[in-house]
């Protein structure tokens, strides 16, 4: 039996998924608390021992790959010129590479912004600005500002091609690790994020893994090949398109609800479903990821609860006890807490339903009705996802929670001017294997697709 072990080094848990490559089936999953701060291999060995205890052979696997979101994940800063144009394009590129965009800056950096950027100490800086042949002043000025800082983070230069070599040159002269790639917005109406994303991933493998204390894993155990969110994004693409030569589910949305953030991934064209709708704004990529840093079930539980309260969700999940504030405070304190009582489960579900509803509201496009002398016209911003056939929920709430359907249904309703999926089939990732399918897809896409399809549960 050839076994593939797919690992994930999260900030809270180290997870492992075992797949039988010959029989094309899931062998088992296990997790143990992460030990990134000390010796990361301790948590990994504990997770592997958990798997072995269930009779899964973990010695001499045929394939061993890992993803990581530990130690804050891949923290990036995006720089561009106009906030709605190149800053947004750079942000979009970084998010699609699995990064956490901690800040975006438009126009020429002020002194205060340079100081703030230094204090943020990002893992990677994405420097854009100007379409090809367009503005060159902003990116050159910002490159000089970066060159004068003490920052050691690699700089991905993805701006106006007419000056990008000069930008790389002046950063390198200052001793920075500057790398050239294609413009993320070569023309005003064309996003071009793939090259920049590939470069970000190379830097992640080459430099970030080591910087995060994960190099011990690389030397002793496995290759860590991508940030965890990128693995989930790859799994979303696999689910939508299927493995090479076969079909998939068509267009797909994946909602990944975590302790600190909620991520939404779509693989969908987002073309208007209303005849004659006029598209405005920056074009969006078919594979799109958004991250909501204020919608986590643990770290931001207090503010999410307030939203749940005002949305009337506490009644739906029969919550309303006086103990609620204390329960929520405990969630914030003990971020690794797993729900036990009915009340715990109901609270988690209410929080998750809010996170799911708000995060998908922000991810989906919207329409505005505009009255003209010719009557009513719809103007669409972002993606129209109303005809999307499938929505998948992943994260602890769907693996261990009891109200998966109610939580995920929040991705389908809300403001009528938001273009969310109207009547999709709902699936939950009960075995928590989305990231693993994304990793496995790198080498065995057909196996990865089959195992994922077999283990998603329609609700």
């Amino acid at each position: 039996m050839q076994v593939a072990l797919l690992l994930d080094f999260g900030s809270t848990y180290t997870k492992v998924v075992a797949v039988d490559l010959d029989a094309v089936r899931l062998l088992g999953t296990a997790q143990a608390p992460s030990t990134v701060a000390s010796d990361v291999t301790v948590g990994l060995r504990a997770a592997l021992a958990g798997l072995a205890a269930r009779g899964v052979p973990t010695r001499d696997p045929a394939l061993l790959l890992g993803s990581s979101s530990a130690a804050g994940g891949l923290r990036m800063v995006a720089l561009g010129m106009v906030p709605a144009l190149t800053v947004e394009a750079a942000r979009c590129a970084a998010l699609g590479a699995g990064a956490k965009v901690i800040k975006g800056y438009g126009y020429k950096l002020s002194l205060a912004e340079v100081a703030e950027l230094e204090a943020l100490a990002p893992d990677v800086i994405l420097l854009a600005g100007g379409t090809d042949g367009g503005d060159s002043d902003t990116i050159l000025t910002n490159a000089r500002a970066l060159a004068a800082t003490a920052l050691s983070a690699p700089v991905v230069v993805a701006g106006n091609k007419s000056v990008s070599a000069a930008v790389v040159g002046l950063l390198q002269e200052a001793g920075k690790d500057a790398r050239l790639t294609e413009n993320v917005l070569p023309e005003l109406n064309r996003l071009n994020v793939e090259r920049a994303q590939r470069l970000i991933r190379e830097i992640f493998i080459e430099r970030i893994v080591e910087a995060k204390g994960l190099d011990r894993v690389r030397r002793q155990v496995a290759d860590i090949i991508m940030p965890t969110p990128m693995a989930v994004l790859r799994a979303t693409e696999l689910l939508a398109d299927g493995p090479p030569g076969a079909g998939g589910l068509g267009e797909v949305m994946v909602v990944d609800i975590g302790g600190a953030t909620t991520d939404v991934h779509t693989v969908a064209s987002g073309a208007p479903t209303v005849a004659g709708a006029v598209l405005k704004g920056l074009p969006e990529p078919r594979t799109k990821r958004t991250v909501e840093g204020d919608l986590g079930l643990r770290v931001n539980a207090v503010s999410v609860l307030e939203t749940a309260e005002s949305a009337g969700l506490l009644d739906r999940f029969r919550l309303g006890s006086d103990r609620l504030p204390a329960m929520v405070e405990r969630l914030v304190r003990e971020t690794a807490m797993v729900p036990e009582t009915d009340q715990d489960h109901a609270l988690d579900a209410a929080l998750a339903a809010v996170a799911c509803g708000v995060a998908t509201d922000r991810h989906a496009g919207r329409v505005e009705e505009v009255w003209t002398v010719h009557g009513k016209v719809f103007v669409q911003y972002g993606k129209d996802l109303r005809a999307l056939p499938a929505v998948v929920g992943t994260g602890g709430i769907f693996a261990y929670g009891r109200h998966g359907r109610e939580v995920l249904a929040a991705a389908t309703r809300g403001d009528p001017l938001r273009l969310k999926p109207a009547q999709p089939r709902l699936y939950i990732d009960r075995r928590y294997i989305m990231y693993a399918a994304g990793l496995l897809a790198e080498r065995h896409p057909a196996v990865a697709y089959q195992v994922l399809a077999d283990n998603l549960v329609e609700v």
Partner: protein
Amino acid sequence: MLESGTIITGVIGADVHIIGNSILAYALRQAGFNVVTLGIFCSHEDFIQAAQETAARAILVSSLYGHGEIDCRGFRDKCREAGLGGVLLYVGGNLVVGKHDWAMVERTFLDMGFDRAYPPETMPDQVIRDLQHDLGLRS
């Protein structure tokens, strides 16, 4: 492509008339300009942001539904604020409702800060000649 410069075109306001604007964009491309087309329903910000990012040398505003005057008010001032004080601004189409003395209409738009204003039935050739002249591409 870039030697003649980048030109922004679009239809301002809640106006859906795209055809004249598309013909103009086609003719400008034939004449060697790099044309960025913003389509219909353009706000001042759409034009300005596009011009900033692409370092455009001219913005050509179309208005066909008669509300051009109100839609264009304050546009030059916003351009100045956005660091685009030197960008050429042209406007054309059916700028006002009803029959008016063109000289008066033209004066109104020039006073608003537009460099040139064109009446209905202007041919693209004339706009191209003016652009080439104003951009110093020919004497």
